[in-house]
């Protein structure tokens, strides 16, 4: 039973409330029979949009760059501010900060308004995954801030990798100097010991191991790697191999979108 914390700055509901017990559908988790009919190595369709919706009437307080990202049911919005003055400053290098937040209605259970430790952890993961791609040395004493809000999530590892892709696109929109865009993907190990890509929450719950990789495909460098669960060294090596291929595909999708946006922008300027 959850006890809701009373927050004087918000409208509070009852002190104790619980979710009713829902009958959960049973998912047979194996590579060749996925619930949504996908192939094991296929990623859910990606949709994204960068920048403001209407370019005119964008206010002075609007972010330097923004992106909205969808991958299946996952919906993420990200805003980039900077390079700007910040509280922390390093005279040699710029600092990249990332704030990650789940909207209260974004998960299958009700999330707290207050920042929880897992949000803090994911924020740090995103920082570590994306900052190697940023040319921070050209922004001494400055901060680049990323604010990420998950509007809807479906699978934790998939949500984190979607957030990485979303930040990459927003950084390009903000005109921050990058070595390369970071593209991320996630896999999970199914019952028949097959790596299955981009798992939904139901699939993830049934999986024995989850694996996340962020990579800069054009320079072929890995920026973040995370594994939860038990595998043999060979299986992990396999996971790295398959993730390398799929992250390149994800990268191609991001790049194609950015190119189309840029071309669209050029047209509207004429």
């Amino acid at each position, binding site marked *: 039973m959850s006890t809701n914390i009373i927050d004087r700055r918000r*409208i*509070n509901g009852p002190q104790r409330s*619980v979710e009713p017990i829902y009958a959960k559908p049973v998912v047979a988790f194996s590579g060749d029979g996925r619930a949504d009919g996908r192939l094991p190595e296929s990623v859910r369709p990606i949709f994204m949009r960068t920048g403001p919706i209407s370019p005119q009437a*964008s206010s002075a307080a609007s972010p330097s760059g923004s992106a909205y990202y969808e991958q299946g049911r996952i919906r993420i919005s990200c805003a980039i501010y900077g390079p700007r003055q910040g509280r922390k400053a390093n005279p040699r290098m710029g600092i990249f900060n990332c704030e990650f937040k789940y*909207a209260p*209605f974004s*998960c299958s259970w009700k999330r707290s308004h207050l920042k929880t430790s897992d949000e803090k952890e994911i924020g740090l993961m995103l920082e570590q995954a994306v900052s190697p791609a940023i040319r921070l040395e050209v922004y001494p004493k400055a901060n680049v801030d990323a604010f990420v809000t998950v509007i809807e999530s479906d699978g934790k590892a998939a949500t984190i990798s979607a957030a990485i892709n979303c930040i990459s696109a927003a950084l390009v929109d903000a005109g921050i100097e990058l070595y390369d865009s970071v593209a991320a993907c996630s896999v999970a190990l199914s019952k028949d010991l097959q790596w299955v890509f981009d798992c939904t929450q139901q699939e993830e719950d049934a999986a024995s191991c989850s694996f996340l990789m962020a990579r800069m495909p054009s320079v072929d460098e890995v920026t973040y790697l995370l594994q939860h669960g038990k595998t043999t060294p060979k299986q992990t090596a396999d996971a790295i191999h398959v993730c390398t291929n799929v992250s390149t595909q994800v990268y191609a999708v991001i790049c194609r979108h950015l190119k189309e946006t840029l071309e669209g922008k050029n047209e509207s300027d004429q």
Partner: protein
Amino acid sequence: MSQSEKSGQITFAMQTFERIHPVEFQRRFLTQNTRLSGREFSQFRALHIVKGSIGTAQGSATVRMGNTIMVCGIKAEVCEPDVKRPKHGYLTTNVELSPMCSARFRPGPPSEEAQVASEHIHRLITPSVDLTSLCIEENKVVWALSADIVCIKYDGNVLDAAIVALVAALENLKLPEVKVDPATGVVEAGAEGGVQLGIVRRLFPATFALVDDNYLVADADDAEEQMTSASLLVVLDDQGQMVNVWKRGAGIISRDTIAKCVAAAATRKSEIEHALST
């Protein structure tokens, strides 16, 4: 930055002028009876509403008004009712204005603007819904709905967008059929989409802003809000009756103007009604 000097006069690119002198920039438009966005003074931004946009919430809606985007999601939980009101459920509304939507907000606890909006919307919506329709078993179990209205992009007039998003999400709300086990008190949810919340009246907001002490504009965007000295919110219900009038700020709005605003709010009501029905 293009800067050239012609006969002693400095000229800037439009964007440069907007950045260094935003008030004067806006004033140049207003004195010509136009707005930067190209809208008429009495023209609201078009509304786009998508209902049921979020699968993890029991009710949801996304509202877009120009560059302002708000998402409202409602999560339903069960709890014990208040002893004094054994048949009433709970509905809490919170507005989230995070630093993601605008540089005007800081991370951390909700800003003053967010708190004021949450409180005002809560006071508006509570008498507009039938909380007894949230009763599962008198004195034992009721629904507790928490509606969170998250701003994705901020470009002025969030209060209108938030109210419309909340109303659309409440219309979209579908609560599952539930069974209470009399022995253990465990609440089990069955098939989705059994019960709907009883809505007494829908709310149709319209905000007007007094910009630069002289010009009354409808649905001000962020740049216009920065030079607003007074704003007037008029909320109408389905019958076109006034539910709420809220004038904020020290700027003077004459009685005639208020009457005109109420008339304009009726026109806006039909626009919102149309957007809600699609």
